[in-house]
């Protein structure tokens, strides 16, 4: 059993949650999301974000709109849809539960 696999599994779910969470605060274009995720050290290579965005969009959790940019190519701003918001809410509950569970288990003296 490889630790990388387990780590990847853990990260995968959290990454989805984080992306939705970032987008719930304000609509972003991919570079902005990447910046946030990098800052939080959640992704190593930028490419990781794109399949994820595609999946979330395919699931109708995300929508986007185009905006011209003065310097460089146009930007594609992503935002949460209604169902994306609901989805995020559910994830949040689960995350809180998990978080609590982990903390409780780790700190509990047996």
């Amino acid at each position: 059993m490889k630790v990388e696999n387990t780590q990847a599994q853990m990260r995968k779910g959290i990454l989805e949650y984080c992306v939705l969470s970032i987008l719930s605060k304000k609509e972003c274009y991919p570079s902005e999301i990447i910046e946030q995720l990098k800052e939080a050290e959640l992704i190593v290579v930028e490419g990781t974000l794109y399949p994820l965005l595609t999946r979330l969009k395919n699931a109708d959790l995300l929508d986007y709109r185009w905006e011209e940019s003065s310097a460089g190519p146009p930007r594609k701003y992503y935002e949460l849809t209604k169902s994306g918001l609901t989805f995020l809410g559910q994830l949040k509950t689960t995350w809180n539960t998990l978080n609590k569970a982990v903390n409780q288990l780790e700190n509990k003296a047996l």
Partner: protein
Amino acid sequence: MKKTTTINLAGMVYHIEEDAYQILKQYISDIKRVFSSQEGVEEMVADIELRIAELFQERLNKNKEVITSNDVEHVMLIMGSPNQFDEDFEESEEKYYYQASSKQERTKRLYRDTDEGMLGGVSSGLAHYLGIDPVIIRVLWIVLVLAGGSGILIYIIAWIAIPEAKTTAQKLQMRGQSANLDNIKAFAESVKEEAKTGFNRASQSVKRSMNKSSGAFANLVRALGRVFGFVIFIAGILGVIFTVLFFWADFNLFYINNEIVNADLGTIIELFFTNTTLASWMIFTTAIVPLIFLIIAGSMFLFRQKPKSRTFVLTLLILWFVAIVGLAFLSVQTGLDFKETYKSQEETFISGDYQELQINLFEEDLMITNAMDYDFDSYLTIYENQVKLGYARIEVLTASDSLFYYSVEKRSSGGSLKSAKERSEEIVFDIQQTGNVLDIPARYGFPKKSKIRGQKVNLKIYVPIGKQIILNGNLEQYPLKIQTRTRFSSDFLERTSIWEATQLGMEFKGFLK
């Protein structure tokens, strides 16, 4: 100084160096391939291109207007390799490692190598793909061609199905090299070298520089290839000579049990096929084309030379196919000529109150004294106008009558009952009777124009009860059947034998002293 090209990335124009462009193109097509199963891959790639454009934008300024391979590699580092994109890929370890380890092979594509190829470049292309010497593949083709000719068909299919490596990038891809600047340069160098030296083919020198380690083995293979080439070259030439002689000279090479059939192949074809001229040309073509290919293949191995004209080879191939198809058609047509069978029967009574009947078997006006010398199953002799095919089958039976008699059954096939009947009437089988002696021709014949259509003759000799029959000569091997009272043994026929008819069949009385 480097050549640049322009690309449109997310609606922006970028000047990019050629080699950088090749790397970027490969990168994007790799992403597409890895995610090809995912829905909306085009849109995803468009998003990625957008990001790449942004990253390029960051690296360009007033003093830097062109994207170099450095820039592309930097961007690729930031974006990561397609395998790193999706954590799903890391879940299945095997897949991940397979992708990583086979990265080199994955970029290899199957193309036809017309530069190095002899014909359509199929062998050479396959050799690149499999990483072996093309000689091995060519030898395999020839083995396949010789073992039933399937090689030719497979080759043609491969020729059609596999695309030709036209561009330098494709040629490099065919060899499993990525189209980076160094490789393109090396390739161009070798092409230049070829132009200089004249006889050394470019790709060979590229290959030599690529796998020096297999040099000794390659030399051995090449030497073997030459020997092999020499053998098939000579075999092809001899084959052509003999085939031509078979068809157009009275060259008798068909031995059947040491007896020469005195006819050339043309005559034998004439005896079977309805449309003789067409059939002989088709059989000739069917036979000669593979032999010409042998010569061409042999000379390719021997002189390491391409055939002069591909059109010539293609024409031959087409001719060969037409001939085979035509031959199949003619064979079906000929087969239909066997559809109906007609039997004619004629009985002859021998008048006179004889106690015994003597049977003499003749062949070429000579009495057969020892039938051991003949092969009775497949004996075909062709005369000027007549064909003799096999021996009449003779049966000796007890007659219910008081007179000796015999019946001749002539049998032939034909396309219709009418033509079968006509053919059976054309069969020549003349029995001479002088007193109580029957002179029977051992073989039956028919005119050449009736063609071989399963003609057969059965002779039945009936012996009245209490009377005797004398079979002259050693007929042990002759297709002779005697309806005996007790067990029959061919030993009874080893010398002139006397038989007597009884109620229950013929009885062996002894040999004539």
